[in-house]
């Protein structure tokens, strides 16, 4: 019997990665809160995670090889294509759509969700360690 890490860890590994990515996007929004013409961006977490889940369930799926930088990937995690623009609630006159309060709330929420994903992942690891030790 072999332990398959991808099966043992479940979706939490991808979730943690996406949370990190989202934290980066939100941090960028906050850093550019005073940049004229900057548009706030965000990722659709649910859609991306679903994509990941599908990619995981049919891991046997055929992937086309990309030998050139201009080739389009057929089935890969690429958050940049999923970067969306936030709909501004109070757009400012200089074309900036960052609402610092909203971004901060989203960032804090994302941090908490990251921590819960981490907790789940840590639990899986602990479970596996217990199984190995047999205590």
């Amino acid at each position, binding site marked *: 019997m072999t332990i398959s890490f991808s099966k043992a860890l479940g979706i939490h590994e991808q979730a943690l*990665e996406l949370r*990190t*990515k989202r*934290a*980066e*996007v939100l*941090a*960028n929004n*906050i*850093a*550019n*809160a*005073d*940049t*004229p013409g*900057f548009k706030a*961006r965000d990722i659709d977490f649910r859609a991306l995670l679903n994509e990941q889940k599908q990619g995981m369930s049919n891991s046997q799926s055929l992937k086309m090889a990309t030998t050139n930088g201009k080739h389009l990937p057929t089935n890969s995690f690429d*958050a*940049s294509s999923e*970067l969306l623009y936030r709909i501004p609630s109070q757009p400012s006159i200089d074309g900036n759509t960052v609402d*610092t309060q909203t971004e*901060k709330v989203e*960032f*804090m929420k994302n*941090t908490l969700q*990251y*921590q819960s994903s*981490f907790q789940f*992942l*840590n639990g899986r*690891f*602990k479970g596996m*360690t217990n199984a190995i030790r047999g205590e």
Partner: protein
Amino acid sequence: MSLNQIFDIAGSGMSAQSIRLNTTASNIANAETASSSTGDVYRARKPVFAAVQQDAMRQAMGSDFLAETPESKGVTVKGIVESDAPLQMRYQPDHPQADERGYVYYPNVNVVEEMSDMMSASRGFQTNVEIMDAAKTMMQRLLTLGQ
């Protein structure tokens, strides 16, 4: 590792806000610096913020280890421009720097505007510090994975 980039992003935000605070301090300090001609008068200075495009960053680093995303990463100060607002002319014939018509020129610094700019800059700085702190906590937790 994406979490490392948060430090760079928040750090760029902090440095941009501190440059803004620096110009504000300079403007307020020179708000009453009189001069006898329009050419010598201090003019209010303002930083111009711009988002760092990733391509430029990649070029500067000389490698493409960053993910290929068209999004921006952090903020930069493109330059510091002098304000075009009209200068203040005051009729003070007994001022040592008065010109032949008795006028003294004062900078176009709006102190109220500078004060609100100062508050905005310090709040922005604070927010970036908090983001950095949160990223630090996330990273520290990640180090305890599996323990």
